[in-house]
C-alpha cells in the first residue's frame, strides 16, 4: 500500500491529482463558516459525490475532506473531540470510492495547517503541533488512506511538525506549501527554501511542492524555482483555477478549463510530476487537464514570459528568491 503512488507514478510518468474541495463543497450547499469535515458524518453522500467528481474526471489521486480536521481547527466548531472519527470517515468514504474503480486510484488524507503560529513567534509548541498532526494521521490511516497529504502550510516549523506527527502514525506522506506573498510563503519561505527544508527532514515526504497561493501563473513560477534546485523527489503542483472575481454576489474563479489544461502541460514541462488544481478547480477543469496531458507531447520548460503570456501576469515582480530583489535594510547592530 505504501508505495502504491510511486508505482503508479513510475508507470505513468505523471499523475493527475484532484481539484478543489472547499469551493466545490460550497457549490453543494456548504454554508460559509461551517466545518466541511462535519459533513463527513452528516452528508457522506455529498462527500462521496465530491470524490467521485474528481475520480470520474480522471484524477489518479484525490484528497480527503479533512483539511481542517486537526484539533486546533475543529475546536472552533467545538468538535476537537472528534478528530479521529471525522478523519477516519473522510478516508473511509474515499477508500470506498477509489476501490470501485478498475484503475488504481490513490486516497490521500488531506491535512491542513493548525491555524496557529508556532513558538517562538507565536504560541503553539512543537510538541503540541506534532501531537495534533499525529492524531489526525491516525484517523486517516484507520479509514484506509494510502498516504497523508499535508497542504497549504506556510511555516517551516509546522511542516516539520507534520512530518514528525505522520511518522508517528507510520504513514507515507506528500506535502505542499502555499507561496502567496511576493513569491514566498506568508512566513517568508522561498521555493528554494522548501527544497532545502525537505532535504533536511528526518521523515521526508515522497513528493513535495506548492498548492493554492495566488493564481496558476504564480504557482508555476514557484515550480520553476523548485525545479532549478534539482530536487531528488517528485514535484507537486496544485494551483488555483485563476483568480477569484466577484460577480453578481458570487465568487467566481476566472481560470477556464482550457487555461488549466495549459497550466497542467506547462507544469509537466517544468518537471512537475503530480499535477492538480486547488480553489476553483472543478471536474470540468480536471477533464480538460487529463485530456491535454494524455494527448500532448512533452515540451521544453516554459520561461516566465511564456507563463505570463499563456496564463496571465504575476502578482509580484520577483519570485522571492532574493536575486535582483530588494534586500533588508542595513542596521547598526545585527541580531545575534
Amino acid at each position, binding site marked *: 500500500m505504501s508505495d502504491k503512488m510511486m508505482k503508479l507514478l513510475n508507470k505513468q510518468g505523471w499523475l493527475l491529482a484532484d481539484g478543489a474541495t472547499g469551493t466545490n463543497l460550497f457549490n453543494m450547499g456548504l454554508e460559509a463558516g461551517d466545518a466541511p469535515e462535519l459533513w463527513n458524518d452528516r452528508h457522506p453522500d455529498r462527500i462521496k459525490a465530491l470524490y467521485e467528481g474528481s475520480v470520474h474526471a480522471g484524477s489518479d489521486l484525490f484528497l480527503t475532506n479533512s483539511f481542517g480536521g486537526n484539533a486546533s481547527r475543529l475546536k472552533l466548531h467545538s468538535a476537537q473531540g472528534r478528530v479521529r472519527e471525522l478523519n477516519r470517515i473522510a478516508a473511509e468514504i474515499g477508500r470506498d470510492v477509489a476501490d470501485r474503480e478498475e484503475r488504481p486510484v490513490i486516497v490521500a488524507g488531506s491535512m491542513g495547517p493548525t491555524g496557529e503560529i508556532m513558538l517562538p513567534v507565536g504560541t503553539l509548541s512543537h510538541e503540541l503541533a506534532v501531537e495534533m498532526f499525529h492524531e489526525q494521521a491516525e484517523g486517516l490511516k484507520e479509514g484506509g488512506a494510502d498516504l497523508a497529504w499535508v497542504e497549504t502550510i506556510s511555516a517551516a516549523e509546522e511542516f516539520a511538525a507534520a512530518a514528525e506527527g505522520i511518522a508517528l502514525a507510520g504513514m507515507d506522506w506528500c506535502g505542499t506549501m502555499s507561496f502567496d506573498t511576493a*513569491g514566498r510563503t506568508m512566513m*517568508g519561505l522561498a521555493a528554494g527554501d522548501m527544497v532545502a527544508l525537505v532535504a533536511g527532514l528526518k521523515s521526508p515526504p515522497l513528493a513535495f511542492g506548492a498548492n493554492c497561493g495566488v493564481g496558476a501563473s504564480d504557482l508555476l513560477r514557484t515550480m520553476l524555482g523548485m525545479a532549478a534546485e534539482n530536487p531528488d523527489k517528485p514535484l507537486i503542483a496544485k494551483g488555483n483555477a485563476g*483568480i*477569484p472575481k466577484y460577480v453578481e454576489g458570487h*465568487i467566481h*474563479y476566472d481560470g477556464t478549463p482550457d487555461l488549466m489544461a495549459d497550466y497542467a502541460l506547462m507544469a509537466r514541462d517544468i518537471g512537475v510530476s503530480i499535477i492538480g488544481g486547488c480553489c476553483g478547480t472543478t471536474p470540468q477543469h480536471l477533464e480538460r487537464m487529463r485530456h491535454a496531458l494524455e494527448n500532448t507531447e512533452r515540451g521544453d520548460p516554459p520561461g516566465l514570459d511564456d507563463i505570463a503570456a499563456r496564463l496571465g501576469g504575476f502578482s*509580484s515582480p520577483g519570485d522571492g528568491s532574493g536575486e535582483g530583489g530588494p534586500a533588508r535594510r542595513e542596521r547598526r547592530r545585527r541580531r545575534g
Partner: protein
Amino acid sequence: MSDQEDDIILAELSDDELVLQMHDDLYDGLKDEITEGVNILLGRKWTPYDVLTKALVEGMRIVGIDFRDGILFVPEVLLAANAMKAGMAILKPLLAETGAPRLGRMVIGTVKGDIHDIGKNLVTMMMEGAGFEVTDLGINNPVENYIGALEAQETDILGMSALLTTTMPYMKVVIDTMVEKGMRDDYIVLVGGAPLNEEFAKAIGADSYCRDAAVAVETAKALIAKKHNQMHA
C-alpha cells in the same frame, strides 16, 4: 556585515542616535532593547507622545514599508510588534495622564463564517503600532457585532477581514446594513484578506482595499487626514 558594533550601550548614545538605534531594534524585534530605549528617552525628559511617535511609530513605519515590499515577512513583523508592545506598555499610562492626541479609533473583525485571524491580528498590531486605538472583535462576526461596536464608542474606522472567497461577500451585508441605518458615511470602511482586491472593495462599497497590514496603516492615515480636511473645509 561587521559585528564590531555588537556592544552598543544605548545610554551612551545621543538622542538622535538612540532614536535611530531604536528603529533598528524594532526592525530586529529586540524587545528588551526597546524597553530600555523607551526608559532612557523618558529619563531624558522626552514627552511620552514624542517617544511614541518619533521612536516607536516611526520604527514600525519602516518595518511596515519592508513588509509591504516583500522584504520582511510575518515572523519578523510579529517580533517587531511584540517589541513595540513592550514599549507601549510603558507609555500607555503616561500617554493617558498627559492627554496626548489620538490618531483615531478602529473597530476590526473577521466576518461571519470566517475563522481566520492571523491577517487581522497583524493589522491590529500594525495599527496599534502606528498609534491607533483598536477594538478587535475577533473572528466570525455577524453584522450586529460590527454595528454594536461602532455604536458603543466613537470610532473612525471599520476594518473587515475575510480569508475565504465564500465569506468575503458578507462584507457587503455589513456595509449595506450601515447604509440602511444611515451611518455608512460616518466611518471609513477598510477591507482586506487574501482573496480580495480593489475591484471587489469598490463593488461592495468599501472605501478602500488594503493589500496588507502596512497598506492598511498607510490608507487609514491618509483617509483620516482627508476626512479631517473635509471637516475643516
